[in-house]
C-alpha cells in the first residue's frame, strides 16, 4: 500500500486532525490545564485590583481581555515552543519526522491546537471577572468580537509554528520559551498599554500577532481601536508566519538531521 500522495484536501485534513489531536492530548494534561486556568485568573485578579484603583470606566473588561490573551500567549508559547522539546523527550519527534507527510503540516496543526486550548484561559478570565469583579460581559460589536477571536487564535497558532520551527534545533529550547513569556506580554500591550512604555517598544509589537489580536478583541469589545484593521493585520501576519515557519522548519529540520539533535541521545 505505502503512503498515499498528498493532495491539498488531505493536507487540510491532516492539519485539522493534528489540531484536534493536540487539543485532546493537552486536555489530558492536568498540569497544562491547571496552569492554563489558574495563571490567567491570578494575573487577572491582580490586574483588576490595579485597574479598579485607577477608577477609569471600562478598564476592567480591558484588563480581563488582556489577562485572557496573556493566557493564550502562554499556552501557545509553552505548547508550541515546548512541543518540540516534549516530543523529543517522549521519543515521538523521530516517528513524526520519519512519517511521509511534511512535518510543517503537523506543527501547524499542533500550533493551532495549543493556541485554541488557550481560549480556555480567556473564558476562565472573563467568567472570573464576571463572577467576582462584576465585569459586564457586553461587547460593542458582537460580530467583530466573534470574528476577532478565531483570527487571533490563528495568528498566535502560526506564530507558534515559527517558534517551534526554530526550536527543532535546540535541545534546551524550553529555557528560551521561559524568557519569551513576560516580554511579549509587555511589548504587545496585554499587560499595560504600550503608550506607557518607551517609544521604541511599540514598533517591536507590530510584528507580533498578539498585538493585533489584542487590538482586534479590545476594539470589538470596547470600541476605540479599529478592529477591522487589526483583524486584517492579524491575517497578513498569519500568512507571513506560515511562510517563514514552513521555510524555517525545512531548513532547521535538515540542520537537525546533520547535527543529530532530533533525539535526546
Amino acid at each position, binding site marked *: *500500500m505505502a503512503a498515499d500522495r498528498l493532495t491539498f484536501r488531505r493536507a487540510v485534513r491532516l492539519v485539522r486532525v*493534528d489540531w484536534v489531536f493536540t487539543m485532546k492530548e493537552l486536555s*489530558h494534561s492536568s498540569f497544562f490545564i491547571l496552569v492554563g486556568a489558574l495563571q490567567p485568573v491570578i494575573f487577572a485578579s491582580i490586574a483588576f485590583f490595579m485597574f479598579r484603583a485607577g477608577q477609569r470606566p471600562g478598564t476592567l473588561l480591558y484588563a480581563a481581555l488582556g489577562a485572557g490573551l496573556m493566557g493564550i500567549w502562554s499556552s501557545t508559547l509553552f505548547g508550541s515552543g515546548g512541543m518540540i522539546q516534549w516530543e523529543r523527550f517522549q521519543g515521538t519527534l*523521530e516517528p513524526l519526522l*520519519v*512519517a511521509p507527510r511534511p512535518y510543517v503540516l503537523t506543527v501547524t496543526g499542533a500550533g493551532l491546537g495549543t493556541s485554541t486550548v488557550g481560549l480556555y484561559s480567556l473564558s476562565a478570565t472573563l467568567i472570573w471577572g464576571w463572577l467576582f469583579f462584576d465585569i459586564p460581559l457586553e461587547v460593542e460589536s458582537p460580530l467583530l468580537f466573534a470574528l476577532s477571536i478565531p483570527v487571533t487564535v490563528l495568528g498566535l497558532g502560526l506564530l507558534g509554528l515559527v517558534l517551534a520551527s526554530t526550536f527543532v534545533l535546540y535541545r534546551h529550547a524550553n529555557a528560551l520559551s521561559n524568557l519569551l513569556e513576560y516580554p511579549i506580554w509587555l511589548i504587545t500591550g496585554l499587560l499595560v498599554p504600550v503608550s506607557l512604555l518607551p517609544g521604541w517598544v511599540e514598533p517591536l509589537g507590530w510584528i507580533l500577532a498578539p498585538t493585533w489580536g489584542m487590538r482586534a478583541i479590545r476594539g470589538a469589545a470596547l470600541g476605540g481601536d479599529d478592529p477591522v484593521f487589526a483583524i486584517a493585520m492579524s491575517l497578513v501576519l498569519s500568512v507571513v508566519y506560515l511562510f517563514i515557519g514552513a521555510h524555517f522548519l525545512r531548513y532547521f529540520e535538515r540542520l537537525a538531521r546533520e547535527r543529530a539533535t532530533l533525539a535526546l541521545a
Partner: protein
Amino acid sequence: MAVIEAHDLRRTYRSVTGTFRRKTSDVEAVRGVSFEVDKGELFGLLGPNGAGKTTTIKMLITLLIPTSGSAKVLGHDVVKEARAVRRQIGYVFGGDRGLYERVSALDNLKYFSELYGVGPREQKQRIGYLLELVGLNGREKERVEGYSRGMRQRLHIARGLLHDPPVVFLDEPTIGVDPVGARELRATISALTEQGKTVLLTTHYMFEADALCDRIAVISNGEIIAQGTPSDLKSAIAARTVVEIEAYGVDEARLDKLRGLDEVASVSVEERGQAQVILVQSAKGLQLTQAIVGHLDGIRVGRVSAREPTLEDAYVALITDDDGS
C-alpha cells in the same frame, strides 16, 4: 536491484565539553559500512551496544544525514529523496518511549495513520487488522500510560506497519520485553517476510538473529567485520571447541594469562548470579581443560564442560578479535 543499498556510509558526531573553555571532539560512530538487502530478505545488523547499529539504521531511514557515503532504499537516495524513502518505509524502535502516553492506543494509531498517509476509508480496517496481528485487540481504548513494556512494543510494531510499507526497519524491537512477549514479537517479525516485506533488524541478541535472519552483518566499532548467513558465520569457527568453566571471583589478570596461551583463540566472561562463566575457544581436538584450570589456581572453580560452538560463540570470537586488533 537491491531494496536497501548502503555504500561506504560514515557518520561522525561532534561533541562539545566544558563551559568556558569549550572543546570539541569528533566521534566516528559509523566508519564505512556497506551492505545490500534484497527483496523479501530479513537482514540482521548484529553488534554490541555502541557499535553503530542505530546510527546506521537512522541514516537509512532519513533521520540522520551521513557524513559521507551514500544509501538508497528502493532506488531512492536517503538524503536527496528523503520524502520518497519515507513513503516506502516503516520504522519500529525498541523501548517504551515514542508513543503518546496520555491518549489511547487507538488514538495513537488513528493519528499516525493520517501522518503515514493511510486513506480515511482504509484506516478502520487497517487498524483493526494490526491490533489483531499484535494482540492488542480489546485493549486499544486504554491510555498508553497504563501499558506494559511488551504492550507498548507491540503498539510500536502496529504503528510501523500502518501504511503497509514494503520495507521495514526494526531497531532492537524486543529490548526489555519478557521472554514470552519477545517470542510472540519474533513470530510477528518472521511473518513480515512471508508477506513479501524486506526487513532490516538490529539486535544484540544472537539467538534472535539466528532464529530470524536470512543474512547477518556483524558490526563492531562502526565497521562491518563479518557478513553472511548464520551458517556461514558459525562455520567460520566450526573447527573450534568451547570450554565453559564456572568460576567465582576470577580477575582480569588471570583472564589475561588465559588469553596469552598460544592454543587459545578467544576468552570471554558471562556473569551468572554469583558465578562467572569463562568461555574459552580453541581449536577442536586440543585437550586444554587442565591447562586452563591450572591458570585459575587459587580461585573456586565449579562445573567445567566442553561443547560445539554456537552463533553466539562466533559473534563473541568476531567481536573479541576486533577489539583485540
